[in-house]
């Protein structure tokens, strides 16, 4: 076992994992019924798993199916447990670790996109600079007056974070992000 006994702080036989935690994107297909999101989130908090990002919306209206996309972090052992624990939830149809699938296909990671709304206020040079950078990032202006812009930007998480960082000194007021939506490349579904 690549684990060792933790010397302090716990009431049970807690072992320290020496395997490196990694971020994975899970796609969870669920019946769209009351409480289903609470079951998923409760599982994560109850068992001490991490959620980096979570998105949920009904995706197949006539079948009442929703798709939950979760970016989580853990060792391979924990990630396997997360998948199995999610599958135990009665309204859960399928759980696919998109990251694992992508790797099996020789890809680095699944297709992941996020949308952010970014409000920037300012005048003069900052305002011009903000608009110029937004253009470079292919962010579009969806609201503006003489004192502010709201940009809509879509892209990989890293791109959005970069954009937000750049906007900070230019008068960033607030940000709203959707969390990651993800699919695997190729013709077949989950």
């Amino acid at each position, binding site marked *: 076992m690549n684990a*060792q006994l933790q010397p*302090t702080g716990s009431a049970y*036989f807690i*072992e320290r994992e020496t395997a490196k935690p990694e971020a994975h994107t899970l796609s969870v297909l669920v019946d769209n019924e009351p409480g289903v999101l609470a079951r998923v989130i409760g599982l994560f908090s109850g068992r001490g798993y991490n959620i980096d990002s979570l998105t949920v919306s009904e995706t197949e209206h006539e079948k009442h199916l929703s798709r939950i996309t979760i970016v989580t972090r853990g060792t391979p052992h924990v990630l396997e447990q997360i998948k199995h624990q999610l599958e135990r939830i009665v309204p859960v149809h399928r759980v696919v670790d998109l990251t694992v699938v992508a790797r099996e296909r020789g890809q680095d990671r699944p297709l992941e996109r996020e949308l952010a709304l970014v409000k920037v206020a300012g005048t003069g040079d900052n305002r011009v600079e903000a608009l110029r950078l937004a253009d470079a990032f292919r962010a579009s202006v969806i609201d503006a007056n003489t004192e502010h812009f709201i940009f809509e930007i879509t892209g990989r998480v890293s791109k959005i974070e970069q954009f937000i960082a750049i906007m900070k000194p230019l008068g960033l007021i607030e940000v709203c992000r959707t969390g990651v939506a993800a699919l695997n490349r190729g013709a077949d579904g989950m």
Partner: protein
Amino acid sequence: MNKAHVETGRREMTGAEMVVQALIDNGVEHIFGYPGGAVLPIYDELFQQEQVQHILVRHEQGAGHAAEGYARSTGKAGVMLVTSGPGATNAVTPLQDALMDSIPLVCITGQVPTSLIGSDAFQECDTVGITRPCTKHNWLVKDVNELAGILHEAFQVATTGRPGPVVVDIPKDIQFSRGMYTPPQTAPRSSYRPKLEGDLEQIRAAVELMASAKRPIIYSGGGVINSGPEASHLLRELVELTGFPITSTLMGLGAYPASGPRWLGMLGMHGTYEANMAMHDCDVMVCIGARFDDRITGRLNAFSPHSRKIHIDIDPSSINKNVRTEVPIIGDVGRVLEDMVRLWRAGARADKAALRPWWEQIERWRARDSLAYKPNDDIIMPQYAIQRLYALTKDRDTYITTEVGQHQMWAAQHYGFEKPNRWMTSGGLGTMGYGLPAALGVQIAHPDALVIDIAGDASVQMTIQEMSCAVQYEAPIKIFILNNQYMGMVRQWQQLLHGNRLSHSYTEAMPDFVKLAEAYGGHGIRCEKPGDLDDAIQEMIDVRKPVIFDCRVANLANCFPMIPSGKAHNEMLLPDEATDEAVANAIDARGRMLV
């Protein structure tokens, strides 16, 4: 009104009528419950029929444990009915208990009317929110036309796959309103399809690995019991065919008979020396319906270091959760064992030449006699009490339940279980107060059987009020209290871990259990001398009434053998080595952090 002859097809009725009809259609004969404002319509329907018998408990926790005992002794779902708010919150302990021990339990709760939900109404609580993490699934019914389907689904979810507790929360207005009742349907929802058949290739690989084993062991658990009597039968067949030694978890006792030639006794923290040593030294481990719980494994990184492991479990999340397995088989234990036995018969042979020295080694471990204790002529040793209880009840139709603590471990060690479904104990959650109501539930299911709750003086007081229920229903349960005036297991740990500072583990004001029994309308017996014990136990058996047996035992006896916290299977503390000094130093600084 004659509802008994109502046909089970679709028809219009009230929500409350649907509840009773769904119980009948799902084969329920007994339910355990406690009325209250939010379930009055259902109680009114119960009043007007005779097919479902309602057992009135004295506390909702008692209803839950009684239903658990009922379920575990029959293999059917246990059913409880409680009101909203405090009724539901009192049900939480048995729900979690049933979740951890995989007991099929259907809990129906009343809820405030739909229009008042969220208004902090009288006796309102977020029942589905509170019970979400302690159930396999739960439902809040918002449309009377969905009620019947939800109730049938609740029974299906509770009893299939890995069994567990479910909650159906029914607002009062739904109970009053009329809708269409639909009979149970066989097709489960598409997202819930437990995998029952094991992968044949994996089973073949397991059989090959078993045939090549030099030092094999079978480690079975509660999953064998849950899978039904046929699974226990197949387990016995497999043991006989292979000649492998077998040990079992607390929950699995009785699946293989304690009198069987291959039996090593229970394993784990208070398991036998031979079972734990064999687990540590084995080269092939066959885990059947058990889950590598921390009470079983001891220190994980020293757990059975030289073995390759086969793990049969119906729950994929049990595989590789705590311990890595080389051959995982996901499926119902009974189905998998059927294939395994068939494949073994088709040509596999155990390595008899290797098994002989392995058994010789096991016999040397067994000769250490790890369950030994010093007999005493003046004071009843708790182990002796269990042994006499066993001797005097083993030839009867006996069911044993327990509370949680030293008495529970002594019962597991010294009472011999020959059949499945005869042993009801709270394993995973460790719920003090489980045994008395569980015994009540067992007795309701088996009115003519001898049902004994082996109890501790502290645990039994947590649900002692159910004596009143036992008297009301003339359920002649026997509460056999090993009374040592202490919370014995807590005291033992304080001795081991905390310099024998016995902080709040001594009960200074103990009730007079004999008078207490009489006050409830039962029969009380006190026994203080080993010489009087047999006659007293016989009296307990013969009285056709609920009995509280106050068995005064040695106050400071410790439960051995024991794997101290943070230690491995081969570092057991044995009774003959447990000097005061050894006990004081058994657990090092690291182990002190562990429970």
